[in-house]
């Protein structure tokens, strides 16, 4: 994971969002099946299929098993996902027979707020004592995706608005309040194993389950990440630097996004 001297595009040639998405795609290597949330996770999963992981099985909560979209879907209900799938099943079936049954290797989630134990809030935001709660979209599939997939990857932009000391609402449990909590709650998967952002990658400390900065994207400093995190972020003893995007990864990502734009 240390930066190499390979012929990578120069830093100015990519954006921090591209770094985030490319690293999220890389994190899918080794997975057979991924339950894909819409937005950043879907972009990353589709990029993985076009780069290092052509056999990755994409599963969407709209009921598609093995979607092979030729362009980025705008929503999880795009016809493209059904047309290119190995099988289309009902929404109850996708949740009961496939997700709940523990058949999916990786759950890939976005989030509005994350805390140090990788718990997620996508429900409401406390805007202060005299103001009404701010409304977020709600849970969607996330609570059961995080509970039942073999492991969970998260991808979201890094800011103190997103990475908060205390969630206003626990929509989805990551590691609860620390070690043993998932077992106590009967959550069968390993839970979040990486949170991939536009600045780097956080992973839970095996001893404490608390998210720790383990990787920085090229050119990002520890101080930048700590400043964008709403709690006193711990830093791993050795912080790696993620590989810069290859020309192939960048080209594939940009082609994917261009095709998505032109189709809408």
């Amino acid at each position, binding site marked *: 994971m240390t930066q190499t001297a390979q012929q990578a595009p120069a830093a100015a040639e990519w954006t921090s969002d591209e770094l985030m998405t490319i690293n999220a795609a890389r994190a899918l290597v080794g997975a057979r099946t991924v339950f894909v949330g819409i937005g950043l996770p879907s972009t990353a999963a589709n990029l993985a299929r076009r780069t290092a992981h052509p056999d990755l099985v994409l599963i969407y909560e709209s009921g598609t098993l093995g979607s092979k979209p030729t362009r980025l879907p705008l929503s999880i209900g795009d016809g493209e996902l059904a047309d290119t799938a190995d099988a289309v099943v*009902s929404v109850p079936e996708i949740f009961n027979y496939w997700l709940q049954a523990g058949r999916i290797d990786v759950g890939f989630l976005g989030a509005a707020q994350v805390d140090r134990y990788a718990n997620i809030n996508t429900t409401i935001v406390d805007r202060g004592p005299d103001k009404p709660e701010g409304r977020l979209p709600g849970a969607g599939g996330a609570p059961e995706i995080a509970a039942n997939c073999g492991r969970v990857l998260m991808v979201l932009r890094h800011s103190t608005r997103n990475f908060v000391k205390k969630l206003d609402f626990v929509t989805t449990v990551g590691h609860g309040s620390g070690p043993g909590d998932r077992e106590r709650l009967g959550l069968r998967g390993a839970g979040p194993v990486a949170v991939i952002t536009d600045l780097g990658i956080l992973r839970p400390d095996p001893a404490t389950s608390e998210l720790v900065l383990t990787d920085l994207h090229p050119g990002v400093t520890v101080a930048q990440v700590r400043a964008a995190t709403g709690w006193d972020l711990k830093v791993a003893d050795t912080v790696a630097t993620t590989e810069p995007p290859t020309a192939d990864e960048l080209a594939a990502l940009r082609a994917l996004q261009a095709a998505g734009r032109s189709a809408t």
Partner: protein
Amino acid sequence: MADIRTLHDAVAELIHDGDTVAMEGFTHLIPFAAAHEIIRQGITDLTLVRMTPDVIYDQLIGAGLVRKLVFSWGGNPGVGSLHRFRDAVENGWPRPLELDEHSHAGMANRYVAGASRLPFAVLRGYRGSDIPTRTDTVSTVTCPFTGEELAAVAAINPDVTVIHAQQADRQGNVRLWGLVGVQKEAALAADRVLVTVEEIVDELSPQAGAVTLPAWAINAVVEVPGGAHPSYAAGYSVRDNDFYKAWDPIARDREKFQAWIREHVLENTAEGAAAR
């Protein structure tokens, strides 16, 4: 047995003030035309049920017809917030909106219990989440064989379910395909079922992965070509992604929203909408 009706008459007969109404379709086959007819007829004090409220419920909520929403994910898919939904929840405009909020897995199983005419369904869900603190339709049951505690969710049995499908035959048998979502369960969970279809045909076409609902499980069928716009009907239309994006600035602004509803819904007719 399903009668083939006009949209005006079917909505007027089957949907009443105060009803609990589910209008389903997971991004695909969303019954927008029927929702617009509800707005035209001013049917109000509704409890609306839908996994993904989407733009269709943003419109009904903004029109002031909804007192309660039962749901699991309330966004404009691929775009952002549902501003009319947020305005109702955050500011009570144009009226307060009570919420019964679940996860997708919970909502799907609530419909399954409803379609099975069981009072509840069991799932592995909600563990450690704050969701159960805000609803009285999540509880627990203990497995009599293993002692494990599992989540229980209360069945949903709407007064009326409205869905859009690709085809009906002249007897009123309905066929839908593509992403079939939770429509079968939502329809079978309801006391009354209204189906709008792209086309009434002499014989339903064979379709891989199709759901067929027999005429005797449906109350009324209405032919409304394009009745799912801006969502889509696989084999008939494509999703109007531009509309979803264009909705964002319309719905952000109360006046723009009202002007849009006036122009595109209220000053339209069921027949005009169908001809669109």
